[in-house]
């Protein structure tokens, strides 16, 4: 799976203002509403579900990256967005480091395979340190988009 298969390009965010876990999640979910990928009426329910998942264990997987996510019946296909916080946010990460790079995923409850393949793509690309570093330094949504496209181009299609 490629980034372009699930990342909504109109929702990319290169300068997250929130400095709390819930704030970042809310900001990202709102940008998916603004991009028309999730319904405004479902925003609260989705934010709550993502926070509930975080309570089970942080999705801050290390290297300054977090993958907040949830299943939600209001979406019919996997949708995702990417955001960068230049200041970094305390996400109770596994390695204790603040998080600057966020991949938020909302998937239909009956498609666990798509969710796994999105996680696989994200984690595989993040093994490339320069990709990680460049994304964290993105100054505009277009910067993020170019980096994701580049990663898609070089990655193995699966």
């Amino acid at each position: 799976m490629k980034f372009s298969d699930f990342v909504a390009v109109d929702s990319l965010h290169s300068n997250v203002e929130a400095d709390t876990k819930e704030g970042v999640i809310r900001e990202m979910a709102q940008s998916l509403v603004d991009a028309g990928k999730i319904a405004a009426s479902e925003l609260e329910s989705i934010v709550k579900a993502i926070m509930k998942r975080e309570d089970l264990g942080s999705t801050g997987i290390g290297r300054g990256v977090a993958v907040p996510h949830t299943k939600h019946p209001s979406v019919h296909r996997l949708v995702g967005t990417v955001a960068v916080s230049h200041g970094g946010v305390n996400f109770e990460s596994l390695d204790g480091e603040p998080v600057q790079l966020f991949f938020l995923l909302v998937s239909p409850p009956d498609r666990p395979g798509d969710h796994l393949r999105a996680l696989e793509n994200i984690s595989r690309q993040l093994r490339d340190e320069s990709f990680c570093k460049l994304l964290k330094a993105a100054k505009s949504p277009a910067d993020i988009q170019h980096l994701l496209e580049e990663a898609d181009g070089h990655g193995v299609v699966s």
Partner: protein
Amino acid sequence: MELYRKPAMIQETISCEVVVGMQQGLHARPADLLAREARKWRSRIELVAKSQRVDGKSILEVLTLAAEAGTRLVVEATGPDAREAVEAIGGLFERNFNEQTSDG
């Protein structure tokens, strides 16, 4: 003067086959639990899938397996505590990482 003999380091390799029993597959939470457990042991721990071999101590590596429900994997440990490590990790799979097996 007291002399000590350094015990020889046993570099045993132990492996076992496991099956991903969770409905949601080996997603972020179980991958995190697995990597945490693996890091408790001194042995090198790898997960072997059909087409790749990854470091069990890295959540990023474990997630690249994208192992769905029903996937067979081999847990392989090499080092002084290989047996205990494989038993501990095999146990996580046996208990389905304390997740329910049917979707709820």
